[in-house]
């Protein structure tokens, strides 16, 4: 096992940040920790990268205990914390050189690992980190986390606040890193990114709701979801919420995801109800369950 977490709990004053967390990550796996702000993701990352000590439980990374063998872990993991981890006043090249030196290596030694990422920011190598855009900072931070060829990579919400194009590129880079044998534990609040992981753990309020492959998690969702659409989203949402048989009503882009309390119900009846409420151009059709649907149901 690359990462092994056993019954980890951590509290701050009267907040239970983590509550009896256990899971394992196999070598070379791309494992996602999926949950919103405040779920405990960052706390867990800090414990696994030896920056914080848990109140209860134990954990190992690459076989080393996070408390007893913390020095060995610090040499062999890459960590990209949330927000910003670079030196703002140093240039791109200076940041990279700095991190390489700290880990006792050089940029040249492991250049082939970061090359694909670094070529995109190389034109700006003399620009200070603080003057880079969000997507560029992210690429630099990733390069710095990889410079010493770590066995395990911890990425804490690496795509928060980043546009969809950069996000997509970032995940493609992660897949290619995985092909090189690096184990990757990544956290995200973007549910669509969960689908890109080998396995995921859904986490909320310090507890794990479910761990499995994205496909399995979605297959466990108990109800059929319907895409519903009408000429006015706001009125549609209100009308559906007032419907006596509604179980859940959530806007999902251009449609509303609707589930009914009954098993098997008549679309026609619902359509009639909505028409009576003055809505037009009504569409009701079955749709595919997503991780986000499952998450919201588990978190209810």
């Amino acid at each position, binding site marked *: 096992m690359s990462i092994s977490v056993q019954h980890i709990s951590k509290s701050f004053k009267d907040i239970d940040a983590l509550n009896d967390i256990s899971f394992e990550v196999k070598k070379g796996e791309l494992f996602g920790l999926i949950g919103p702000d405040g*779920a405990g993701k960052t706390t867990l990352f800090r414990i696994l990268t030896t920056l914080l000590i848990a109140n209860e439980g134990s954990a190992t990374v690459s076989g080393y205990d996070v408390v007893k063998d913390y020095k060995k872990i610090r040499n062999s993991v890459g960590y990209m914390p949330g927000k910003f981890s670079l030196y703002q006043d140093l240039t791109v090249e200076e940041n990279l050189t700095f991190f390489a030196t700290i880990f006792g290596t050089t940029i040249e030694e492991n250049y082939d690992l970061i090359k694909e990422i670094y070529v995109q920011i190389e034109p700006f190598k003399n620009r200070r980190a603080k003057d880079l855009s969000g997507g560029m900072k992210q690429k630099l931070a990733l390069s710095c986390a990889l410079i010493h060829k770590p066995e395990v990579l911890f990425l804490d919400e690496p795509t928060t606040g980043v*546009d969809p194009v950069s996000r*997509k590129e970032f995940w493609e880079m992660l897949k290619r890193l995985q092909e090189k044998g690096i184990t990757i534990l990544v956290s995200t609040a973007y549910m669509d990114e969960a689908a890109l992981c080998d396995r995921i753990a859904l986490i909320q309020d310090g507890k794990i709701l479910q761990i499995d492959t994205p496909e399995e998690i979605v297959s466990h969702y108990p109800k059929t979801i319907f895409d519903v659409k009408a000429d006015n989203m706001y009125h549609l949402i209100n009308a559906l919420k007032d419907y006596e048989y509604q179980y859940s009503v*959530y806007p999902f882009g251009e449609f509303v995801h609707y589930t009914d309390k009954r098993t098997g119900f008549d679309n026609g009846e619902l359509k009639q109800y909505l028409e009576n409420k003055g809505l037009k151009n009504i569409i009701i059709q079955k749709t595919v369950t997503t991780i986000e649907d499952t998450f919201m149901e588990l978190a209810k």
Partner: protein
Amino acid sequence: MKNNNVIQVENLSKIFGDFKAVNNISFQVKQGEIFGFLGANGAGKTTAMKMLIGISKPSFGGASVAGFDVYKEAEKIKKNIGYMSQKFALYDDLTVKENITFFGGIYGLSRNRIKEKTNVLIDELNLEEVADQLVGSLPLGWKQKIAFSVALLHNPKVVFLDEPTGGVDPITRRQFWEMIYQTANNGTTVFVTTHYMDEAEYCDRVSIMVDGKIEALDSPKNLKTQFGVENMNDVFLKLARSPSPTLPEGKGETEDNE
């Protein structure tokens, strides 16, 4: 105001040295519209928004917000709009009630109005239990909802939301958007930037900025038809940037701006 446009932008530009951060953009936003202002990181969105909310002067072109000119009446703009961003919304060291009182005062509300609004807000958001708690101790989702309500205390004609739902759990995100719908339904114009493409779908119209220019402006439905794709994420991917080396046949970025 002569017409129904709450925001009117004509050939708006912002230039730093020889770099065109915002390059000749034009658009209008009607009253009660939910307008999505999208673009990749570095496309010029933030620079453009700063001009519209009266904290940065344009280099060329013009704009009016809530009927006030961005050059000559920037202070009036600030008084007549609401603003909420990810980076700053409320004071963590003040309680919920204190925050409302503070911002109410800044917006020039009378004491009685502030009291009234406080009660309504607390009631509508079910904050009775936490009204006297420090905002810093509340979950992010709650803060966002309170911040949004605070941005509306003075009944502005238009509210600017800068990535208001980043990191928030999916349920709260949707509750937030239901608040946006209700606000727009009441006649307030909502100008919102977001990186969640499903949220782009909730907008009446969406504009996408690329390298300082507006490259697309239409309803989500029309944009999807125009680009022959199923969702706004794919519209964005087609439009927002030429491919980089990590994607097949990449050409790479040659410019970078914030």
